[in-house]
């Protein structure tokens, strides 16, 4: 069947293209950090919880992570809204289509997210009284978030495949179906998931560093453990990354193999920076007392995440190139409203900074 190519909206873009594209990628990076804490942190917390009966260190770590998770979810969701908005502005005709093509699953993200979120709060507030049920709840919660991530990977790969849409849609217009047939889906999802575990390892390391004064033994353990998780996950993810690369359609893969110089350089730079981060974190794991390598490693990792997000956008552009390029869109900037947004955002971020300060300075509960 022929590719189906829906038309872009007739209303113009209310801002220059470069700004919208920048906001799309930038807000996605902001979302990526808490989202990785949530996915990867949830998995590591569940594992630590399971090992908690034998190891007190793991038990404490699980407890600590579950204390933080509800707030992490709040950040992940809130920061996720912005990229979801901008992707609809720029690629609405593709995203709405692919969402409908997997309509039931996409809709169920919402009830599942509510359920997972409440389970996180349940764990936080009723940790001790849950006793025997606790591990069941922990795994259900982790499963829910892992599944939601999978659904997102499905939608954001399916939106790139107008070539398969007709067959996909007419087979099941009542409920839709996931993008099972796409070989790029699996490595892409695993790349994200394992990457999330790596990032969560760094998060654990930071938790350990922050707690230094309180309990040195546990903090040192947490730093070392988090660093180890990062190192294992990252090694695994390099392999998955190559799998992802070769699973891409040849035409798309080639942009990272010389056809698009920025994409190629970026991929190479990201691999190098990952190696740098790995070495730094390895040093941090050996010397839990010294903050410098840990902080440097975390910053390097943040750089890697940003590069990955940019490459993700390049990937999207390349996938869609035969059907659509962004410069087809009309632009009629609403500068006044945009200005209002900028002012509001600055004020709001200031207020949030103040709120965080209040929280940090609050007496311990």
């Amino acid at each position, binding site marked *: 069947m022929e590719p189906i*190519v829906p038309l872009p909206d007739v209303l*113009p873009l209310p801002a220059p293209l470069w700004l919208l594209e920048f906001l799309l990628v930038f807000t996605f990076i902001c979302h990526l950090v808490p989202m990785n804490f949530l996915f990867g942190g949830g998995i590591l917390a569940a594992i630590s919880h399971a090992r908690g009966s034998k190891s007190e260190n793991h038990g404490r770590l699980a407890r600590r992570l579950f204390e933080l998770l509800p707030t992490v979810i709040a950040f992940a969701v809130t920061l996720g809204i912005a990229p979801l908005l901008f992707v609809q502005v720029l690629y609405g005709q593709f995203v709405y289509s692919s969402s409908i093509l997997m309509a039931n699953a996409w809709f169920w993200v919402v009830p599942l997210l509510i359920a997972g979120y409440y389970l996180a709060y349940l764990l936080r507030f009723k940790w001790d009284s849950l006793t025997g049920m606790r591990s069941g709840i922990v795994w259900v919660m982790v499963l829910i978030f892992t599944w939601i991530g999978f659904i997102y990977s499905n939608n954001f790969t399916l939106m790139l495949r107008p070539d398969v849409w007709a067959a996909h849609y007419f087979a099941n217009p009542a409920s839709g179906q996931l993008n099972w047939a796409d070989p790029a889906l699996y490595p892409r999802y695993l790349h994200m998931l394992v990457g999330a575990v790596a990032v969560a390892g760094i998060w654990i390391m930071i938790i350990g560093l922050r707690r230094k004064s309180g309990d040195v033994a546990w903090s040192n353990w947490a730093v070392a453990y988090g660093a180890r998780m990062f190192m294992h996950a990252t090694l695994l993810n390099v392999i998955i990354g190559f799998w992802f690369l070769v699973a891409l359609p040849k035409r798309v893969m080639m942009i990272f193999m010389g056809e698009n110089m920025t994409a190629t350089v970026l991929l190479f730079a990201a691999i190098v920076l990952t190696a740098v981060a790995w070495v730094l974190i390895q040093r941090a794991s050996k010397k839990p007392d010294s903050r410098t390598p840990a902080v440097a490693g975390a910053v390097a990792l943040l750089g890697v995440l940003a590069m990955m997000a940019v490459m993700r956008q390049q990937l999207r552009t390349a996938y869609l190139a035969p059907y659509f390029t962004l410069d087809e869109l009309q632009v009629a900037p609403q500068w006044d409203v945009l200005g209002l947004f900028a002012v509001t955002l600055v004020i709001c971020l200031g*207020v949030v900074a103040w709120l965080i300060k209040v929280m940090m300075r609050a007496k311990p509960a």
Partner: protein
Amino acid sequence: MNFPVWELEMGTPLLIAIVAILHVYVSHFAIGGGLFLVVMEHYANRKDDRHLRNYLITHSRFFALVTLVFGAISGVGIWFVIGLSSPAATSSLIHLFVWVWAIEWALFIVEIAAAIVYYMTWDRVSRRTHLAVGWVYFIAAFLSLVVINGILAFMLTPGEWLASGNFWDAFFNPTYWPSTLARTAICIGLAGIYALFTGVFVKHAATRARIIRLAGLWALAGTILAVPALYWYHGLLPAGAAELFAGGMPAAALAARVLVWGGIALAVILLAPIIFPKNFGPGSAITFALVALTLFGASEWIRESVRKPWVIVDYMYGNGLRPAEAEAMSTGDGILANAVWVQERPAAATTATGREIFRLACRSCHTLDGYRGLTDRLGGLDEDYIYESVARLEHMVGAMPAFPGSDVERRALARYLAQESGTTLPMLDGAEVFSKRCGFCHSQSGFRALDGSLEGYAHDELLELFPELAEMIEEMPPWSGTEDEARMLADFIQSWYAVAGEEEEN
């Protein structure tokens, strides 16, 4: 018709209604409840009332759990659902209002952060700071309402924007201010309703009574303030709205009655917690919450209904077409030639084509067997009659857009619907004949009433009249019923006057 259609069995309009009503209910609470919390906290601090403060601490945790999780995520949920069911309209709104959504998002971040800090820092920061956090929460939440309401009101009354294309015309549209006022009133009222709900669980008796009385006052104040606001709003609704309330859309007419009478009932029963706060228990609190939810459902239902046949009034129909596109399709080469998601091309007078036409032209509002299902309503009708009716959708109840397709497509749709509904099912009685052959456009005494014009016709005069009607009035489909049906229908029409006559004799 740029997008695929989700053929959800229960019908996407129903799904939207459920998600939207739940979300709106909670999100207005999230705003009014925020105000309630800070005002009460002020009061508790000033009186140094420990019991009230303890209650507020518990209430704020409940508040945070409801608003942070259900309120916030169901809001995202509406976005998911409208994207799945009205992608074209969602895309329009996103394009026109990106920066409004973005502002909404910035406020949302503050709201979430402040709600978390507020419930977590009772007695952990100075009282002043804590109150300030509460105010930050409320202001952000209220501003987010003021902002989002521009988009909601726009869908109903895009006003000057249609001609000017100017953003500010779209945002400050004709119903912007009255609906902002109405929503503010509702927020205040709901804050009281929820406070009643949590107030009944306060242990200390005197405190409980005081909270319940105060909460009752809040709810009453909100309800009373809503009256002028809604009245103002009502006066600015699109021209066709009055007709819909008068029966042009049965469900909307019912909702309007529920809203008016329910509102009055609520105002009256709210005197109970104010006058007899001591006798107010959990059962009563739940009743109040349900009454409020019903009113909410009714008002949201009305808001959705008066917009028909549009999703954005005068800009886009419920089926995702702009008027010019619909016009081009119906006068040009039809739906299938222009729609993107089509399997069978070119159109032929087959049920396969009909199925696609149904999906593209009707599925956004109807299902076959579920919500607004058509098979029930069309069962027993002949294909020709359906074919003729589809040409006249804009005259039927429900305020539908005109059929945008070609003649072949109309034939195909009729064939498909007739097959799905069963043409051979016999009609049982005159009432059924009336509802299926006339009732799409008339009722006995409500919408486009017939009891006036058909009074005094003898049985055989009616039989003669039915085939002539369509010749007299073009909007009516030609009579194609059987002789049996005509007889049953005539009997039925005559029975209207028999009943009325008997009543007069008594």
